[in-house]
């Protein structure tokens, strides 16, 4: 109500502008001399309003001077001037209206106006209308920002007035948008507000929701009967789902319409306070170890008038029955609240759609991370049937390689370009060495491969700890990967994730190319399907196995560089991904790159979906995901993309 009144006042003053122009600023200041000199936040308002409403160009300078604590009052006549420190303890005063120097005065003849922060804020608001018309674009933009931060009904008129003369198209659009938003909250005409609400009802901006939400805020109230002038959102029945009985009674108590219940603690305190010779009202203290006994003793005390009586269920029922419970909008106009509700609903729907899109993007990016992590495994586990528990450690080695490269090449872009082939080389070599030294002796014993590679995994992890320490090492992404691609206020995706997605696509292509178009791929497929036959065709199965394993390991190394860019590089980096990687391969179906892709997609989407349903808790999301996977395996034991029949073996 106050705001509305003030807005009206502002307009009233605006009408008087013509008169004020002739008069000048000093008379206005003099009119309010007393309160300006007093500088109290509570009383200053009319003075600032009057100055702002004067519309005088010098008012802006005056207000700025005031806010900067450079305004001085001449004690002799109570006139206000802009003061500038001259020699010694004297100040040079300038008249606001004429802009002329009036003279230099001793400090003792003057009084400095020191507006406190509250007043400065009010001055700032008043200044906005001048700044909105300022010739500097930066100042206008800053003024808009200040309105956005701190919207006020008083600013609506100046804002509207400034739109037509705004030369900058971009700022003009911003001003128009802001005008709509302010209209929603502060226009005194209900029809105009409803129109503004409808105008903005397809806008996704957070600011729109921020403008609309206060309109639909409701407050629970209780009264003997519903008053006719309140904007009622809903009436509530105590004991229903939306308003429990206990809650309803608490509301009554809070509104001083009923006596508070006596809590257990209060009973206890009352009893403790009234122990008399080991007894409370004749009941021995030792017996007061059940709620029933305590209630009896308390009732006795109440009867004696020592304590207020217990509130019984009957009291509660009666009190609840005698009152009506309802929710009211803080906003008095039902038209506005209805329009706001509808607009919010509409926006909500649109936000929902966009959130789904955002979630999908998130899921795709997570899926590409899993795919990257799993693709090497899809080769070693899927194609060769070798389970490599040290796969995660290859990822870790790739990430550390990236870190080491960055120590030598400070340029981030260049270092990443160098790190990728380096990581491949390092892990490829490790993979080949591991295959030659360990794995090839264990092809016939898959479970033992699992354990042997696990041994390598813990050894490598500890080695990394010994070399690099336990603290996380940074692997910094190039500057051009910083930031995010923002579609609107809801949908955005960071460039780094896009880069990882692209990298995953490149690897998919590369893998397909190697398998389908190169000699190595042909030999690889031959050796996987029938090593003896392949051997007799002149293929060296040992060499092919070695290269295949090296390739899978090398890709893990590159994935490590990619993962290191957004995750912390620690010695545990790999083990964070190993189970998910295996899940990806198992769920997708072994022996097939498309399977890994499908698996990564499914796990990525699933995890994001579960996280979305239970946004507070990533741990729970992972738990549920794994349970889902275990159940999924029931129905497709061989994965999404399964080989059938004889090729699948047994």
């Amino acid at each position, binding site marked *: 109500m106050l705001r509305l009144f003030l807005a009206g006042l502002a307009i009233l003053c605006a009408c008087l502008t013509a008169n004020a122009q002739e008069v000048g600023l000093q008379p206005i200041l003099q009119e309010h001399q007393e309160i300006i000199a007093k500088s109290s936040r509570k009383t200053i308002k009319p003075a600032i309003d009057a100055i702002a409403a004067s519309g005088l160009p010098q008012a802006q300078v005056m207000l700025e001077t005031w806010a900067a604590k450079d305004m001085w009052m001449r004690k002799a006549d109570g006139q206000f001037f802009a003061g500038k420190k001259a020699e010694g303890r004297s100040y040079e005063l300038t008249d606001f209206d004429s802009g002329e120097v009036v003279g230099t005065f001793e400090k003792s003849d003057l009084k400095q106006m020191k507006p406190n922060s509250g007043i400065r804020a009010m001055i700032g608001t008043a200044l906005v209308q001048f700044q909105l018309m300022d010739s500097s674009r930066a100042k206008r933009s800053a003024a808009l920002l200040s309105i956005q931060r701190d919207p006020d009904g008083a600013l609506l008129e100046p804002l509207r007035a400034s739109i037509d003369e705004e030369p900058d198209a971009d700022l003009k659009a911003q001003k128009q948008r802001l005008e709509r938003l302010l209209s929603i909250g502060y226009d005194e005409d209900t029809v105009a507000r409803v129109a503004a609400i409808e105008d903005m009802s397809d806008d996704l901006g957070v600011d729109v929701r921020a403008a609309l939400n206060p309109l639909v805020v409701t407050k629970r109230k209780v009264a003997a009967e519903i008053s006719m002038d309140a904007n009622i959102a809903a009436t509530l029945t105590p004991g229903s789902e939306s308003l429990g009985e206990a809650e309803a009674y608490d509301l009554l108590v809070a509104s001083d319409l009923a006596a508070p219940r006596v809590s257990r603690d209060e009973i206890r305190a009352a009893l403790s306070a009234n122990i008399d010779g080991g007894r409370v009202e004749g009941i021995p203290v030792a017996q007061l170890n059940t709620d029933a006994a305590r209630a009896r003793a308390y009732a006795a005390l109440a009867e004696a008038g020592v304590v207020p009586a217990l509130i019984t269920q009957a009291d509660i029922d009666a009190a609840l029955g005698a009152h009506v419970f309802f929710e009211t909008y803080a906003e008095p106009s039902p038209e506005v609240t209805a329009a706001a509700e509808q607009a919010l609903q509409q926006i909500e729907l649109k936000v929902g759609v966009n959130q789904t899109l955002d979630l999908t993007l998130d899921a795709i990016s997570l899926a590409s991370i899993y795919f990257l992590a799993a693709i090497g495994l899809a080769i070693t586990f899927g194609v060769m049937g070798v389970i490599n528990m040290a796969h995660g450690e290859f990822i870790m080695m790739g990430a550390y390689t990236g870190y080491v490269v960055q120590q030598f090449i400070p340029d981030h872009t260049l270092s990443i370009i160098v790190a990728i082939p380096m990581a491949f080389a390092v892990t490829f070599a490790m993979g080949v060495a591991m295959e030659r030294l360990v794995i090839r002796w264990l092809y016939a014993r898959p479970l033992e491969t699992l354990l042997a590679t696990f041994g390598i995994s813990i050894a490598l992890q500890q080695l990394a700890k010994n070399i690099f320490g336990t603290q996380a090492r940074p692997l910094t992404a190039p500057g051009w990967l910083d930031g995010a691609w923002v579609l609107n206020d809801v949908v955005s995706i960071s460039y780094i994730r896009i880069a990882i997605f692209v990298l995953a696509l490149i690897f998919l292509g590369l893998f397909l190319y190697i398998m389908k178009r190169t000699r190595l791929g042909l030999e690889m497929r031959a050796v996987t399907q029938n090593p003896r036959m392949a051997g007799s065709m002149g293929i060296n199965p040992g060499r092919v196995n070695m290269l295949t394993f090296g390739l899978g390991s090398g890709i893990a190394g590159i994935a490590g560089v990619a993962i290191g860019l957004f995750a912390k590089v620690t010695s545990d980096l790999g083990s964070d991904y190993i189970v998910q990687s295996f899940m990806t391969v198992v769920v997708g179906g072994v022996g097939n790159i498309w399977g890994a892709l499908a698996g990564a997609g499914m796990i990525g989407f699933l995890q994001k979906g579960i996280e979305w349903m239970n946004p507070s808790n990533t741990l729970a999301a992972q738990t549920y995901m794994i349970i889902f996977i275990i159940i999924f395996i029931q129905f497709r034991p061989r994965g999404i993309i399964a*080989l*059938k*029949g*004889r*090729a699948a073996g047994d």
Partner: protein
Amino acid sequence: MSTLLEVSGVSVTFDGFRAINNLSFQIGNAELRAVIGPNGAGKTTFMDIVTGKTRPDEGRVIWGEKSVSLLRMSEAKIAQAGIGRKFQKPTVFEDQTVQENLLMALKNKRGWLGVLFFHPSAGDLENVEELATEIGLKDELTRKSGELSHGQKQWLEIGMLLAQEPRLLLVDEPAAGMTPKEREHTTDLLVQAAKTRAVVVVEHDMEFVRRLNCKVTVLHEGSVLAEGSLDHVTSNQNVIDVYLGR
């Protein structure tokens, strides 16, 4: 002679390849039957279907007097119903003694609790010894079966099958890798077994089949090409084409 097993109109497809194509096959109680056919004719897949390892896309497999469908039963249930199978490779439990192998196969309770508290009775041990004598492994009872020769393992496996007391025995290439003398013994075992139960022998070796002296079914591309005595089928022009033409 009543029908023990009836397979009718069965087809199986692996990734577009029709391994079994509308196959129908019958065998009665106490009958010896040889199934021959070139590689890829579907002999092993046929056994897989009967024993429940592979589920056919269509068709029926009916078992016994009560005409039970085998298609919905697990491998273990089918085996308990009385169908025994011998694999192409001799698969005995090499880490265990001949006696343990035979005891495991012996027709007894198969439930885990029953097995946990099982203690071989004198009768069981006697049975095992009898079987061992029959397959010529009486002296090897306490040896680990992994130490046996290839032929002995084949016999042990046949012995294990007999111990199961199945009503139908499916034998996949029993004579592969045997010396002529061992073959003879194997033939005797099978012929003997077929006196009390149905026996289906899958075999490549014509001479071995001839010695079995029984009705022969020729499979080709997943269906029955010819059926009858060995002389009858070997004079069949289709059969000659298939065998010589490949």
